[in-house]
């Protein structure tokens, strides 16, 4: 990224200003100097606002609009605050603009009510531009916000980097420049993921599936057993039926029993027919009951409702609904239209009294007509039902009597058979046959009952087996899922280990690189004659001063100036690591580097002239492009002497504090000096 131009519209004390940045390799510094309070910090904020929407003012964005413009505006008008940054990045020119309207609410309103921020980013060849759809995302890719504190910083507190207990900031800076924070987030996320996988495994890792399979096996075994029992019983049923038939035949064939057996069989057939008929009658009873039986209990309600509705209709009360007058009349005569007494204090009196008179019919009339029209049908149905039921029940009574008769006759004939002794030896007598038949019949009855029970049991077991089958299906799915989770968990743990170790390695590598640069540069500028002072970044990420004592390096307290120099060289080292990395075009997985400018506010702090000079010498080397804001007090003297020759462009902040009546704070950017033609060719 190479800065080209910054334009400010109504941004704080800058009404309409622009700033060109030097892009010359030999004159890579852009200087802006002015009095305290003249707008240096505002300019630094203009960068962070246009790029990330962030400002570091105590009042936030509440006082962003230019006071003078706000004062001149009419109530209701909006003052547009905007900053545009033009820059060059990897072959394209970009123009980022952020703007925010402030609406003047009343005559004394100098702040205005902020509206909606709009951000745009265009890119092109410098003459024609195209819009980028997601400006915020693209800006974040070009110059990530996590790096903003490295490249846009307040020099007053930069020396803090080299203060004790600040290893976290150093570490963070190193991580940021490498993009390691992103990596770190991934690692943290992976850790969470693997923990989650492990918890899921616990849930699914039970012996549920084998339990289910055991249960299914047991049920299958039971089913097998029951089916065998069924087959046996059914065979027994066939045998018994055949034997009973055979007994009948034998009894028919015996002279003594022939007639009685014929009569008996006829009687049994008749009884069967009668039972069949009785079943049919009961079916008819059922089908007449099922829909119309309800009328036996509902008809009175339908009749009374129809009567009430008829009266309402006759009184023309259905179309318009019940009026208050009508209700009052009912209460007065103490009788409802349905005939119920409406005595004061009774439930019905209360009901009528609390009824809301209807404003409109609400289609009630249609419903009422429908209800009334169906009374007749209901009466017909019910009458048919009653007549039908009377008839069916008496039919059933008759059939029952006949069945009883047949049963009596059968009993008689069977008794007769049972009394016939055998005429010949070695042959079963009719009595014995009849006794056996009775036994067999009893047995058959029990067998049929058994069959029914076994069939019920089989149904039940099959149902159970089906349910378990379903459970097994889902348990199998869960098991497969558990396997998958197990594999994922393993993979996540491995990845986590790998990342963690490469992360640590990479961090140390960058530390070593930074350490090397810091040591070299620090030595070259801060070296005091008698003392052998070095700056190092320790393995614990502390930026420290060291002194050679005998064979050993000892930690020494650095002065503020030394800390300032150490800190600046540290940032410079990060910028050059990022640049080298970028230029090597290394096949970097996590850290591809980049070219970044440094914009710093007042890096000369409360330093003595010697340190100011040393720092001024160092500044051009910090980055490919450096923008420096300085107070006039800092600027005059060694800083100007050192930096002026390296400055491509130099501005003075011309500030009017707006103390006089009718004036407002206002700063103009006055170009003092330009070594190279602005807008020159980009590298």
């Amino acid at each position, binding site marked *: 990224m190479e800065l080209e131009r910054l334009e400010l519209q109504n941004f704080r004390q800058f009404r309409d200003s622009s700033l060109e940045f030097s892009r010359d390799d030999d004159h890579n510094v852009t200087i802006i100097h002015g009095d305290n309070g003249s707008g240096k910090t505002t300019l630094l904020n203009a960068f962070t606002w246009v790029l990330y929407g962030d400002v570091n003012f105590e009042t936030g964005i509440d006082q962003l609009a230019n006071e003078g413009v706000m004062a001149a505006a009419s109530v209701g008008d909006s003052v547009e605050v905007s900053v545009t940054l033009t820059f060059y990045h990897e072959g394209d020119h970009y123009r980022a603009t952020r703007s925010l309207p402030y609406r003047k609410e009343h005559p004394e309103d100098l702040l205005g009510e902020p509206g909606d921020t709009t951000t745009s980013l265009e890119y092109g060849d410098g003459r024609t531009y195209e819009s980028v759809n997601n400006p915020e995302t693209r800006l974040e890719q070009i110059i990530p916000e996590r790096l903003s504190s490295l490249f846009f910083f307040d020099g007053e507190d930069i020396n803090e980097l080299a203060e004790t207990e600040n290893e976290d900031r150093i570490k963070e800076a190193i991580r940021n420049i490498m993009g390691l924070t992103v990596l770190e987030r991934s690692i943290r996320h992976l850790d969470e993921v693997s923990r989650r996988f492990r918890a899921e495994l616990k849930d699914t890792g039970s012996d549920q599936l084998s339990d289910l399979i055991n249960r299914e096996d047991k049920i299958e075994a039971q089913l097998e057993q029951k089916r065998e029992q069924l087959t046996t019983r059914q065979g027994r049923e066939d045998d018994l039926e055949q034997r009973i038939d055979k007994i009948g035949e034998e009894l028919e064939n015996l002279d003594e029993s022939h007639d009685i057996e014929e009569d008996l069989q006829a009687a049994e057939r008749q009884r069967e027919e009668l039972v069949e008929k009785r079943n049919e009658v009961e079916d008819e009873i059922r089908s007449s009951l099922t829909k*119309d039986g309800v009328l*036996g209990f509902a008809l*009175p309600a339908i009749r009374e*409702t129809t009567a009430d509705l008829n009266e309402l209709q006759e009184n023309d009360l259905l179309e318009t609904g019940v009026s208050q007058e009508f209700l009052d009349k009912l209460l007065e005569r103490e009788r409802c239209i349905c005939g119920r007494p409406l005595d004061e204090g009774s439930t019905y009196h209360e009901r009528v009294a609390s009824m809301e008179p209807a404003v409109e019919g609400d289609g009630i009339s249609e*419903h009422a007509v429908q209800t009334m029209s169906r009374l007749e049908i209901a009466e017909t149905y019910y009458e048919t039902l*009653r007549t039908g039921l009377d008839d069916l029940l008496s039919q059933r009574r008759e059939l029952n009597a006949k069945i009883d008769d047949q049963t009596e006759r059968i009993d008689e004939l069977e008794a007769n058979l049972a009394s016939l002794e055998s005429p010949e030896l070695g042959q079963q007598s009719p009595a014995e046959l009849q006794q056996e038949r009775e036994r067999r019949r009893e047995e058959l009855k029990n067998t049929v009952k058994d069959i029914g029970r076994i069939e019920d049991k089989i149904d039940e077991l099959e149902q159970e087996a089906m349910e378990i089958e379903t459970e097994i299906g889902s348990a199998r799915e869960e098991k497969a899922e558990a396997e998958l989770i197990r594999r994922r968990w393993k993979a996540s743990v491995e990845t986590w280990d790998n990342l963690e170790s490469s992360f640590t390695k990479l961090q140390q590598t960058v530390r070593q690189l930074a350490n090397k640069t810091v040591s070299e540069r620090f030595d070259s500028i801060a070296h005091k004659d008698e003392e052998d002072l070095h700056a190092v970044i320790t393995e614990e990420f502390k930026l420290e001063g060291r002194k050679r004592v005998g064979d050993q390096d000892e930690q020494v307290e650095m002065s503020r100036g030394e800390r300032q120099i150490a800190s600046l060289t540290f940032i410079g080292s990060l910028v050059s690591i990022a640049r080298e990395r970028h230029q090597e075009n290394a096949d970097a997985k996590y850290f591809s580097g980049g070219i970044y400018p440094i914009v710093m506010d007042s890096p000369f702090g409360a330093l003595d002239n010697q340190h100011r000079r040393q720092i001024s010498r160092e500044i051009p080397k910090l980055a490919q492009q450096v923008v420096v804001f300085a107070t006039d007090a800092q600027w005059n003297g060694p800083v100007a002497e050192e930096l002026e020759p390296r400055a491509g462009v130099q501005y003075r902040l011309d500030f009017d504090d707006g103390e006089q009546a009718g004036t407002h704070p206002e700063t103009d950017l006055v170009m003092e000096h330009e070594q190279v033609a602005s807008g020159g060719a980009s590298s």
Partner: protein
Amino acid sequence: VSDRITYERPQIYERLVKEHDVFDSYVDLFVFAAAVGFRKDLKRPNAGGDKEMLWANVRYTEIYETIAASIAYQETGDPEILSDEQRQLEIMGEYAAGGIEFLADHFDGTGDPTVDLAEFILEEGTQVQADAESVIGDVI
């Protein structure tokens, strides 16, 4: 979503509908139970339950629709209820819950209850001629 209520469906529903086929469907028994409950003044307000009864099923026959409207009108005396189907269904639900308790007490023995139910309707149900004539006489 069409009008609906929730209701309890005790064992007697299974017995009369599934086992003995006395009623073709749960809806038939529900309406029957509601009519019995209304006639015998057995009401269970806010009965609720885990089964749903849909108005769409009740209005499946014109007679059921008329029964629901009539019972609801008799309950409230308000003609506007004729167009408020949800409310009608709610009232039916309250009486059905009371009615089914009665039926469970009287028809939950073993054996086929068909004939007993038929006799119950003939004995305890409305007399056709007497009531009908007096009411129709009133109307005319």
